[in-house]
């Protein structure tokens, strides 16, 4: 997909590593907010990545999730190039498998060593892949992608993953990230309380963390799928609240679009 309404000044690469499968709808969400999205496949020369003003690593199963989800992709030369772009302040959004890649590469939360991980879901009486709608609460942070929403806002988003539990060897690490404002989205109840228990916290993530960003706020590892929530009509009836009611309007802007809108505003205002 290419040739959106945006100008060439606002080009975003949807980076497709082998096994990625959400490239088309991710590009559609970007085009919807006025960005020029282009699927950038792994077989293209790495140097061509520098032409873009922002990057999205979509969901899927890069390199078959071998070893651990995202572990092999993190070693791909494309990711080293994205690391350099991140240092220059370019925005990078990793969704689901893309989040796993960002965490495995250490781009999130940043620093020289890999500090946190996305472990297998911890759920009562079941294991493996789990797909459902959950709510996330916007936290106070410097993250580019949540900058358009007030802290405390509750948004429904779908999750679909088998390895989505943010954790760290150091038990103080995740709480420290929360305090540092590097967890811009946390799983919450529909009323906005932090979700400690399954299924509102769908994977047992520590401190109910749904997304982690780097200290500068321009790189975000996000487990839910905002691109699947770009249409109001996609919202599950089970969601309830205002978004559940609005779900009758199939093509109206959905609850997931705000992350892409924030990206567009960031790029276009830069």
């Amino acid at each position: 997909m290419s040739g959106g309404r945006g100008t060439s000044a606002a080009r975003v690469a949807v980076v497709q590593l082998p096994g990625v499968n959400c490239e088309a709808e991710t590009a559609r969400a970007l085009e919807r907010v006025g960005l020029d999205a282009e699927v950038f496949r792994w077989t293209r020369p790495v140097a061509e990545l520098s032409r873009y003003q922002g990057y999205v690593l979509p969901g899927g199963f890069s390199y078959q999730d071998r070893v651990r989800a995202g572990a092999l992709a993190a070693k791909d030369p494309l990711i080293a190039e994205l690391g350099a772009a991140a240092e220059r302040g370019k925005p990078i959004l990793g969704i689901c498998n893309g989040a796993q890649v960002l965490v495995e590469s250490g781009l999130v939360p940043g620093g020289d060593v890999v500090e946190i991980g996305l472990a297998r879901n911890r759920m009562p009486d079941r294991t493996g892949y789990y797909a459902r709608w959950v709510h996330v609460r916007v936290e106070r942070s410097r993250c580019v992608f949540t900058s358009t929403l007030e802290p405390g806002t509750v948004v429904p988003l779908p999750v679909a993953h088998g390895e989505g539990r943010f954790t760290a060897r150091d038990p103080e690490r995740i709480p420290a990230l929360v305090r540092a404002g590097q967890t811009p989205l946390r799983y919450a109840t529909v009323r906005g309380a932090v979700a400690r228990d399954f299924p509102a916290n769908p994977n047992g993530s520590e401190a109910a963390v749904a997304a982690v960003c780097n200290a500068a706020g321009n790189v975000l590892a996000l487990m839910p799928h905002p691109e699947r929530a770009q249409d109001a009509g996609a919202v599950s009836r089970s969601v309830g609240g205002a978004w559940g009611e609005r779900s009758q309007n199939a093509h109206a802007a959905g609850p997931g679009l705000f992350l892409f809108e924030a990206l567009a505003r960031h790029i276009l205002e830069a």
Partner: protein
Amino acid sequence: MERLRDLSCEPARLNSLTPVAEQPLHRALGLTDGELHRIRDLLGREPNHFELAVFSLLWSEHCGYKHSAPLLKRLPSSGERVLQGPGENAGVIDIGDGLAVAFKVESHNHPSAVEPFQGAATGVGGILRDIVAMGARPIALLDGLRFGSPGFMFKRAVAGIAHYGNCTGIPTVGGETVFDEAYEHNCLVNAMCLGLLPVERLTRARARGSGNLVVLYGATTGRDGIGGASVLASQELAEGADEKRPSVQVGDPFTGKKLIEASLELVDGGLVASLQDCGAAGLASALAEMARDGAGVDVSLDQVPLREDAMEPWEIMISESQERMVAVVEPGRLAEVQAVLDKWELHHAVIGSVSNTGDLRCFFAGDLEGAIPASLLTDECPRYEVEQEPRPPRARTAIAAANRESKAWIYEQYDQLVQSRTVRRPGLDAAVLRLLPSYRGLAISLDGPPVGELDPFVAGAKAVLGAARNVACAGGEPLALTDCLNFGNPEKPEIGWELAQAIEGIAQAAEALGIPVVSGNVSLYNETDGRAIPPTPVVGCVGLVANVRRIPSRWRSGDAILVAEAGESVAEQAALIEFLWRSAPVLSLAHDLSDGGLERAIAEAAAWSGTETKVELPANPAGAAAVLAVSADQAAGLGWERLVQIGEVA
């Protein structure tokens, strides 16, 4: 003419297919003595072992429909929307606005009984490639699962479906799950896929143009799945089924995703003259299908990229290694085709060319291994009129308690939203996918007969009506059907009768609805130690939704709750279905009554709506077919005589 290698004196060459000592090769391959004679007569000579192996696969029930084809002619298959009826990789219908839908349901029962994870996964992979071969992008999967219990085997099959569908990025949006002791030793795994394509991209499998090149691409070829179609799919299972494990294919959805994207890029670019997937019977079937209309194909099996050493020509020919496709390419476009396949990092090789001989000729390192007029493999496949003997009526078996429990834990393992088309998700009747960027949509359902239904005619009719009613309840006008016929051994007269009766039931229901059956699959020999499964026709229905913003969703406070009743006849049932989809835009909810009856249907509707409410169940809910909810002022205007109000939403 090249000299045919005489292999008939080398019995050891096929010894991995002759597990039973001291029996003639043709029987070990699943051919009868009569079929061997027919092959001799048609060829006018003795077949060599290579040729015999190819015949055994193509003349298996799975590929050749030799017991079912005469009966299947009964099904209506034409209509003004039909662009492609039965006989290709999938049926295709025109849905207007320049768009078409390709869809088909297929069984993978026997492989799943032997190894449920890979059996189910490759069932999904196979049906995906059938849809891709028509030039369509797969946009939805549905699964019909029937198992003895929700135990280990079932959980592994669900995991296999999730593995393949989730990894390739195709949403699994529906299906049915039934637990019944009758399927304990013969589980059913039926997979349906639906794909979307611009009408002008419709691609077919028939080879065209003498001198065009045959390109094999995708995964490499190994010994997995050798003899799958004949050994697994067309014989009864018995003690020692575990020994058949080497015949189960292994799926690789990672390559499957690349194969889908590369194939669609080839089709979009107009780079291929025809396309065929390598499914059951591998290259043998793919090439025979391509060559059947008189074209002829010459293939050099030594050119096939292999993953194992020292494979025999016959092994290469019939291997069922997954994630492979065959394309016919004009020589002038080969470089462009190769560039696309290189870009997607897929193996590829020119393995042959289209001829004008009508023969399927197979070479290895210059030697002619086999030469068979292609029509003998397909059109001349023996057809048997099955003997029919009515089975005495049997009492319906009890419904297992596991059927009454929520199925959410199953579909929560499936990615239901990937591709972001899903407007209405699994959990109630049919799923709805939006046809972006318009507001039109598709409602899709896959349904089988009620649990424990033993009357084959009723099973066939109710499968069709159930699937169509699900679609109508989601606001879709039923357009066409696909069917998967799961039965026992058709060589037994009572099974032959069941098969014929079920087809009659499907045909009458389809005729009453005025819609065709455009594709399908037959899975026979679902027997273990002589005990057959109940007649289990599983039917997929595709419907068109005029406006996805106006589909029944959930009931609201103040709505009248109604029960629509209808008689048992297919005509009355068909009329109800038409009423349901025509009324759908004003209904706030519609829900089909399935096995659980009215009480259960209301409980499901309440759970779906998120609002419990009190209703008074009629003393005698006979004939109840659907629960509706509609705003009180609209209730009077609904055009159906047998509507009973049973309550209102608080």
